[in-house]
């Protein structure tokens, strides 16, 4: 119950140590509330067994859309005028690849940004978590809850794994 639990914040210098600590927590009474850090970490993501992010699909769809749009845009504008340049076809696939490629990159980037915003449910007004300030700098933080009676054991467990621990 909430009254009998305490929350510890463990700060690690390396993401791999934080990930290892997450993997080593097997006690059912210890609960990892969240893990935070200044940069994304594949090691921590794997340790938390997180689902694969769907943002990549936004990137792929954006890129494909951009490629088609680029070709379509260049073809449409060429067909409006039907000017024959240097004996080349009006709709020329070889040079239109440049337009298609550039728009593919642009739309892929835009798709990624849109995917990120949607997936992280931004803007998140009034939903701010109290993350350790060090996690915005050079530390990976692990916020763990445990029963008050096991505080010492959890603290020793985390310090053994290279963390600097403080009580929240």
């Amino acid at each position, binding site marked *: 119950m909430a009254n009998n639990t305490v929350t510890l914040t463990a700060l690690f210098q390396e993401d791999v140590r934080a990930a290892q600590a997450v993997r080593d927590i097997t006690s059912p009474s210890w609960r990892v509330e969240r893990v935070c850090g200044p940069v994304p970490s*594949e*090691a921590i993501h*794997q340790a938390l067994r997180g689902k694969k992010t769907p943002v990549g699909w936004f990137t792929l769809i954006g890129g494909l859309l951009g490629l088609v749009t680029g070709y379509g845009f260049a073809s449409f504008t060429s067909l409006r005028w039907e000017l024959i340049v240097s*004996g080349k076809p009006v709709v020329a696939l*070889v*040079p239109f690849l440049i337009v298609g490629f550039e728009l593919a990159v642009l739309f892929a980037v835009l798709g990624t940004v849109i995917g990120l915003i949607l997936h992280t449910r931004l803007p998140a007004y009034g939903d701010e978590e109290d993350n350790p300030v060090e996690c915005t700098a050079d530390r990976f933080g692990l916020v763990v809850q445990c029963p008050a009676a096991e505080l010492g054991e959890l603290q020793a467990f985390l310090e053994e794994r290279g963390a600097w621990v403080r009580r929240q």
Partner: protein
Amino acid sequence: MGATAMTGTEANGKSKRFAGVGRLAWGMVLLGLAGFVAALLLGEPQIAWRAYLVNFLLFSAIAQGGLAVSAMASTVHVYRSSFPQLAEAFSAFFPVSLLLFLGLIPGAEYIFPWLGQDFAGGKDLWLSLPFLFTRDVVAFVLLYALGLMYLYYSLWLRVGQSAPQTGLRTWLAGIWSRRSPNPETYANRRFVLGILYLIAFAAVLSLVGYDLVMAAEPHWYSTLFGAYTFIKAVFVGIGALIILAAALHINRSVRMEIASWEYIDAGKLLLAFCLLWADFFYCQLVVIWYGNIPEETAYVITRTVQAPWNVMAGTVFVLGFVVPFLVLLNRRVKTLPAMMTGLCCAIVAGMWLEHYLLLAPALGGAESTVLPLSWADPVISLAFLGIMIRVVLGYLNQFPETLEPVAGSRLHGAGGN
């Protein structure tokens, strides 16, 4: 000196692991050699020498590009992957490549169609057989000397002295014991030689691309052809490196430890050079297409539009770009050694076809209505493949530490991205 100590028994045991594959490789060499001689005796010298040239270019590119990967990685001081040290195994092909290049001399009339032609504007000075062979031999010697010097320092930093001193190791151990090397000095020298090798790699492969491939059509030129050649070498070198790593990882008697992140990094590098190779091809294509100058377009039209070469061009495009691009977008695929082996084999096959496509229309294939692929092409290719396998295995037998994980490397998903 960073080194993993190995007992004599361990090293001897490890060297016997490759005995079967070594015998198979020798068989391939003999079969290929027999095929080459048979083609000459059966009145098909054009086919035999064309296959020789295509395979010489491809396998030399694999060796040169492979060591370039190691040299590139050596500029990143904290990159702890097994791939760069494994890439150094391809440098064992360097002396063979030099000999094979000299072996082109007897077949000059079949692989240099410009022989006997008159050129204006100084081109006859450039396209003269003695000058071509002299400058290219000097270039290869320079490139391979820099590569082997880089390897010398790299080996000292990795190889232990407790393994049995046989063959090359005895000679190296003798030199090292006389010199009392300093680790920091040798690491700096390796760093500098790595950079010099990369500069020479770009210059020499550009020269080789111009002399041996582009000059087959002596009236056509593309200024980007040299860069296209060395980018292709890195691309195919990375592909061959992944095949080698995966084979050693999967092989039950070797079981080389390679972490997922190392495969992912190699896969990303492969994707990057796949895009770069395709991009360099497109850069040449779009300029020629837009300029529409007959002197330039004839080369491209023959190889991409006209039958029978358009089919091969489409195949090269699919094997070299479409399939690798689509497959390598997926992260998980990069961690599957068997899948990556299949993909990289397709890439190497695509690059073989690409060399063939660039050369064959100029070397007796211009009037063909069907693709002039013959039985001699795969048979002679076997010889070169057998030689490559044999020399790489020889290197791994001499330096079995190459198969050990890098000291301090982060294995088992504990690090990397």
